Each structure stands twice: as structure tokens, then as C-alpha cells.
């Protein structure tokens, strides 16, 4: 059973993240690749004490990184958009998830 903190890696505090937070009542996180939408939902509810409406996820392939002649990749990761129920107060991200 994955715990809250293994599911949610960190909050994504970006321009897009801030804008959807304001317009759609949606929080954005980087989550564990193996995490399911349900797990993310439970984790966010536990962490911020809010009700979650829906979760959308997206998988990202890590970008290629070169170090001299060696190529490598950044780790793949999963992003989750967590829409809160209407009327829920938007929590502040705490930077150190």
C-alpha cells in the first residue's frame, strides 16, 4: 500500500500550475509513475484535508541528457492534475513535499 508521500513527489509550482489553480480549482503534482488516479486522489485528500473531484494524469518521458559523448535520460515521470470539488478552499502548496 503506497503511502501519501510516496505517491505525491512534489507540487509543480509553475506558471501553468498557478493559472489552473486559479481558473479551474486544480492542483498540479508530480506523482509516482506507478500511482493510480485513485491513489493520487486519496493522497491529496489526506494531505490537504480537501475533497477531490477528479484526477487526470499524464506520463512524461524523460528528456535526453548528454554528458560528453555519453547520452542518458532523465527519469520518466507522471504528472497529475487534481481538480478539487467546487467551493473547496484552495490550499497553499507547501514547498517541501
Amino acid at each position, binding site marked *: 500500500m503506497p503511502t501519501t508521500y510516496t505517491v505525491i513527489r*512534489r507540487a509543480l*509550482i*509553475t*506558471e501553468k*500550475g*498557478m493559472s489552473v489553480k486559479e481558473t479551474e480549482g486544480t492542483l498540479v503534482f508530480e506523482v509516482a509513475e506507478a500511482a493510480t488516479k485513485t491513489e493520487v486522489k486519496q493522497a491529496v485528500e489526506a494531505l490537504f484535508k480537501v475533497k477531490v473531484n477528479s484526477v487526470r494524469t499524464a506520463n512524461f518521458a524523460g528528456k535526453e541528457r548528454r554528458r560528453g559523448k555519453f547520452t542518458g535520460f532523465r527519469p520518466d515521470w507522471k504528472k497529475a492534475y487534481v481538480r478539487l470539488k467546487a467551493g473547496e478552499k484552495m490550499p*497553499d502548496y*507547501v*514547498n517541501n513535499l
Partner: protein
Amino acid sequence: MGTTLSIPDQSTTDLSTTDLNNTDIVETPTAAENTSAQPEHEHDHDHAGHDHTHQHGPVFNPEVTRSVEVTIPEDEVSRAMRSTVKRYQKQARIPGFRAGKVPESLVRARFSERIRQEVLEAVMPQHFQKAITDGNFRLVSQPQVVDMTMEDGKPLWFKASFEVMPEFSVDGYPDVKVEKPSAAFSDEEFAGEVERVRDSRSTMEPVEEERPLVDGDWAQITFTGSVQPAAEGESAKESAPLSGEDVILEVGGSNTLTAFSEALRGATVGQELKFEVNYPEDFGEKRLAGKNVSYDVAVKGIKRRVQPELNDDFAKELGDYSSYEDFKAKFRENLQSEKDRRTETDTRDRLLTALSERFQFPVPESMIQQQIDARLDRGLRSLAAQGMREEDMKRLDFARLRAAQRDSATSEVKSLLILDRIADAEQIGVSDQELHQELELLSLQLREPLDTLQVRLTQDGSMARIREQIRRDKTAKLLYERL
């Protein structure tokens, strides 16, 4: 979480506010976001280059410490806050945001410490200055903020302490007198000085005639001496026989052991002598102190010290003098001016001590510390000039050194304050011409061209200090002349 911040260098904090960094600032979060996870507070002032002792500010002398409480209206604080945040917003680079697109709330949270600092720096000095002017305080120290509250939507309140110029009067200073020794240079003293020069120019001439040694002769001897008794447990080195070849010593001279003088007196060249010397317990050389040494001495020659004749040739040899009379006149003049100078500094010192005793007042601690700094600085520089390496210097016990300097620093500060007061009373000023002269002298000493020196000193504020220094010097001179 790593954040890359590229904010232009804000490290130029002016002196009147640097102390804010050193005082405990009550933690009052400026924004709701500011609950945790601050980017690490980065000390934006430079610690290198100056020592850490005055980081915490000196402990003030309570007798001359005053404090002011200042309240700054809320709208002024928030105005400063807004403009600072705006500026940060423009410059902040935070991953995930394009430059200049970072939301205000995030900027406030991220840089709250720095913003707060800047706001304080923007609003405090001005208000503090006003409070000082209103209260008519003459500050002699950097102010220290001792207490402060800063909350959103409330006026900023702070309390700052500082030392002020002690109040004291120098009434009756003309009555403080010290003895002024006669600076005249007597003929006997002069003759003594000439004799000394003559001695330093004297040569050793062998005495050819065969005669016994008399007092004043220099005996050239070869000797061996065995230490007796060799005390138990002494190493071979310690009991090794003494020996010397072609040693020259003065019979009856003050640097010669009496036993040697007595043994040698009357001896002739080629004669061999045997005698014992009982060294006193407190003899300078440990190895011989309290020991009995039997010496075998062979007299190899007699020498006499020959002093040069006091004539024109002697004068020419000494330097660029045309005749002996010329030398005498110039030599005397030199000696006289040197003595004058010595008398003057000495008398001035004593006068200042007398004044300090007469006028008692509390001395501001910050001035003492400054004086200690100056003294240490001078000391270290001379150590460096003597070739002390920097690593060795760092190993010095600075706390002890400072403590040792304290008394003299205190009395220096005291005399300096008294002199300032007397200068006020005497209405002594420093003309531009006098300042110029001093600068010319300084430029020669420092081997720095006059104009660059002038620019530099004006910039670092030393010009005012030099002016003060000249003023004090003039005052002390005046007092000296009146004695």
C-alpha cells in the same frame, strides 16, 4: 527543493543599517505563505575582510547609552513593501516561470526575508535620523536595534540604542599644568654626546712597547678554562672546557669580570697565568652561574683604544662638514631639536594624563573598541612589516590582545575627547592650507600621488578624521606652549 535565484547583488548595505543584521529580529511572517520552507537565508553581507568581533556590536557603556523608539506609519511601510516586491517580481528567476511572470504571492513567500530586510533598510534610516535630530543626540556609535515589531497592516515600531558623546565640561583646563622641563642642552651633555661619537670612531692599535697591562688596556688573550667541580648528572657538554682564542677584553673595563681584570693587571705579553674564577649564582650564563672555573690564560698582546683627534679631519670623516667647528654647531643643533621634540611629546603626554585625571567622564565603549581596532591594525601592520606571515597572525589570540590594548585605548579616547572639547573652547579651526600640508606629507609617506590620495581619502571619509587629528594636534601644541 533547489531554487536558482538570480537577484542582482544587494550586498551594498549602508553603515547605518548593517546592525539590523546583527540584532534579533522578532519573527513575524509577512505573508501567509511564509509558514515553512523558506529558501535558505543568505547572508548578503560580506564577512571576509573584517574580523568578527564587532559583528555583534560592542556592549555599550550604559552611562552614555541612549535609545529612541520610532514608529513608522503603516502606509509608508506597505508602500515600501509593495515597491520592493514589484522590483523582486521583475528580477526573480524561478524555474517554472518566465522572467517577470512570477506571481506576487510566490515572490513574497520566496524572498520574504530579503524583502523584509530591504524594506527595513528603505524606511528605517530616514526615520531614525529624524528621531536623532529631534532628540538632539550626538551619536558616537552605530545604532543597534534592540527591539522591533513588524506586522502586516500595522505600523512598524522599533527601538534602537546607541552611545552618545559624553557630557562633560573642561572648565578650568588652563589651570591644569605640568612641569615643563628645560629643553636647553647643557655643555656637559653635549660633551658627552661628542665623546660617544668619538668612541664609536675609535680604533684598536697594538701597543708595541713591552710593558705590563694597566687599566684601560685591552688584553688579547688565549684561554682554556675547566669548570670545577663538574656537578653530578651534568652532560658532557655542560662540563666541557671553555676555550677562546685571540679574545680581546678591557682590563678594568665595566664589561670585564673583576677576577679577569685583577689577574691580568700587571701581566706582560707572553706571560701565562693560572687563576680561578668563582662565578656568582646569578651570573648571566646559566652554565657558569655559581661555578668555579680554573683558567689557563696566555697573554698574546696589548692593545690600546685610540680615539680620533677632534679636528677638521675627524669632522670631514663624519659627513659633509667643512670644519670641526661646523660639525659642532650642526651636531648641537640636531641634538637640540631632537631633545626639544622628545621634551615636547613627553610633556604633552603628561599634560594629557593630567587632564584625563582632572576631567572624569564615562567613555563610550564603541569609541574604545574603535581605538583598539586602530591600535591592533597598526600593530599587525608592523608585525607584517617585520615579516610575520599571515597564517601566524591568524593564530594570535585576538581576544587577549584586545583586552591588553584596552587600558591604553581608553585613555587615548579620553584625551582625544578632552582635546576636542578644548579645541571647541579655544575655537581652534583647521585651515585648508594646513590640511593641504598634512596631505602632502602623507602622500610622501605613502608614496601615493597627492591627487589620487585626496580622492581616496575623501571617499572613505578619512578626510574628516585627518582634519580632526590636525585640530587636536594644534590644540595640544597650544596647551604645551602655554605651559
